[in-house]
């Protein structure tokens, strides 16, 4: 077992204008499940591939434990990787796929066989050991890819969107299985996904990247409750947080016809006469006063319903999403008034996007 450290690690692709990963500073604790998440092109896969040794580090270092592996070839890093398309060897049986690394490492046959069987038992793959990948379902292939990583007993697992080729239902199941497995094995894991739900449900900690820059890293709860900038606020959570640019007035922020009270020192930090106010759909309550919302769509989910509407706020008309009681949902075209729940509002600087307070 070992920790993983990115020490001001950068990756610049030849001919690219800006780095794919820009001075990433990140510590993954021993045995931790860290999720790298962000929109496509944010550098999450590149970061993982640098750790695996499949991508060159342009600047900075990567350490596994105390060992600098920056220039070490992939096979000597003691890591195993699960690929998005699984990358199973199509001409080898499941057992041969799983045992390939061990065979190359020169282990004897009985040792390979016992380790393969052990992993197969763990993953319910025993009946399939003699099959070729093409005779397996998508979920089984995914498990073989996991098995191939497990038999190596590596220091670190690298997982590059391992669930994105599965259908929605299987993805949710497998999500839990992978998280359980990782906790059982206690192997440090770096997991890449673009799906923020996966990130929030699986990770001990989540690291949000955008344009090669680290936006925020923390426990899922922290990211949700205290997003450190506008990007994280909008990226984490589904449906996404409502974000409005609103003028600062005496004693708070003008939210439609009411003033949302904000402490003076928080407003003092704003570099502008307006701020970005963020409020999650579940933190909006129906109220007597507040901005008028014209309902466009109501999504009824049973217990809850989400109201998607339009409202005039600050500089113009905005989309707004609010969660309401599922038993008494408003009708389409109705006009409601909403107000943010006290203490559940996030304020960000208009210029820098940094969190001011909440």
């Amino acid at each position, binding site marked *: 077992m070992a920790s993983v450290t990115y020490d001001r690690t950068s990756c610049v692709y030849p001919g690219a204008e800006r780095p794919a990963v820009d001075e990433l500073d990140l510590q993954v604790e021993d045995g931790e499940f860290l999720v790298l998440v962000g929109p496509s092109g944010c550098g999450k896969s590149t970061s993982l591939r640098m750790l695996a040794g499949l991508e060159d580090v342009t600047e900075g270092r990567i350490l596994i434990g105390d060992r600098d592996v920056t220039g070490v070839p992939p096979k000597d890093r003691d890591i195993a990787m699960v690929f998005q398309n699984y990358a199973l060897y199509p001409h080898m049986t499941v057992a041969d796929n799983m045992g390939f690394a061990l065979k190359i490492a020169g282990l004897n046959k009985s040792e390979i066989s016992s380790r393969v069987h052990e992993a197969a038992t763990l993953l319910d793959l025993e009946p399939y050991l003699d099959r070729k990948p093409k005779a397996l379902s998508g979920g089984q292939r995914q498990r073989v890819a996991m098995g191939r990583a497990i038999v*190596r007993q590596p220091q670190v697992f690298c997982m590059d969107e391992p669930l994105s080729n599965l259908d929605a239902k299987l993805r949710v199941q497998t999500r839990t299985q992978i998280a359980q497995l990782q906790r059982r094995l206690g192997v440090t894991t770096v997991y890449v996904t673009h799906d923020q739900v996966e990130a929030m449900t699986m990770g001990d900690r989540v690291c949000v990247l955008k344009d090669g820059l680290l936006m925020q890293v923390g426990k899922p709860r922290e990211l949700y409750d205290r997003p450190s900038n506008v990007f994280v606020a909008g990226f984490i959570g589904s449906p996404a947080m409502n974000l409005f640019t609103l003028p600062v007035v005496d004693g708070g922020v003008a939210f439609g016809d009411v003033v949302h009270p904000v402490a003076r020192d928080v407003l003092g930090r704003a570099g502008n006469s307006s701020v970005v106010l963020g409020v999650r759909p579940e933190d909006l309550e129906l109220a007597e006063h507040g901005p008028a919302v014209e309902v466009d769509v109501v999504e009824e989910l049973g217990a809850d319903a989400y109201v998607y509407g339009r409202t005039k706020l600050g500089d113009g008309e905005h989309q707004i999403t609010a969660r309401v009681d599922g038993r008494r949902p408003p009708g389409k075209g109705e006009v409601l008034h909403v107000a943010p729940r006290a203490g559940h509002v996030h304020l960000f600087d208009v210029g820098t996007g940094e969190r001011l307070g909440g």
Partner: protein
Amino acid sequence: MTITAEKTRTRAGTARTTVTRQDRPSGWYLAPALVFFGAFAVLPMVLVVYLSFTSWDGFGTPELSGTENWTRLIEDGRAWDSLWLTLVFMVLTWLVQTPIAMLIGVWAAGRQRNRAILSSLFFLPLLLSTAAIALLWSSVLDPNFGVTQSLPVLGGFNFLGDTELVVYTVVWVISWQYVPFHTLLYQAAARQVPESLYEAATLDGAGRYRQFFTITLPLLKYTIITSTVLMLVGSVTTFDTILILTGGGPGTATRVLPLHMYITGFSGFEFGYASAISVLLLLLGAGLSLAVTRATGFRKMQSQQEGV
């Protein structure tokens, strides 16, 4: 138009859509292919089989001669020598061409510097006509005026005049001519192997040679078969290079069966007997390609990439 497709269950239990008659494209779409196949493949084959039972000098009308040509073929020692030589050429050219074409093809599928420039150089023989290639090599290797004669070491060999050496010379020239084509096949196939397989193998600790032998080579299996069948069939049909390069000589040292057929027909004007030889070649070529595809499971037409 209404679509009247109905679902039926086959014995295997999988649902299959049965297309009823009115949905099927008209049979006339087959016509162009059938006309060409009939005119240029079936008809000549039927004719050549017919001619093999006749006596014909190329002029006048062929006269039926029963099995005379066939009994003559069975007793013709020169024909059997030519057949043996054809098989020798077949094996030698396969042995020379396959590894070279595979190595260059796999190499050309990569992303190395200068790859594009060097590849175009390697593919150059593909642009030359057979006559040009044969003339080029005969002037290079000519025992009296050839370029090789003024070179050290090589000057000591009589590439086209030595009855032993000439076999290898012809193998070399034919390989030089056809390797680029087979390289193209291998290049295309090697490009189909997903990059992630090599990445996975790298992480599993496989070096470049191991990756070639455990990943690239097994996944090129069907390309090897395709290329092999083309080479085998080519060996029983092509004679043009040899005709221009050595004329089958010296003596009969390079007189392969297709060339023997050509000389019998177009120099000896025994078209009936030449037809019998060509029927033998036809059976040989068809038999070989059937045998190869059956022995290797190629006929099952299963994807090798499925499950990647």
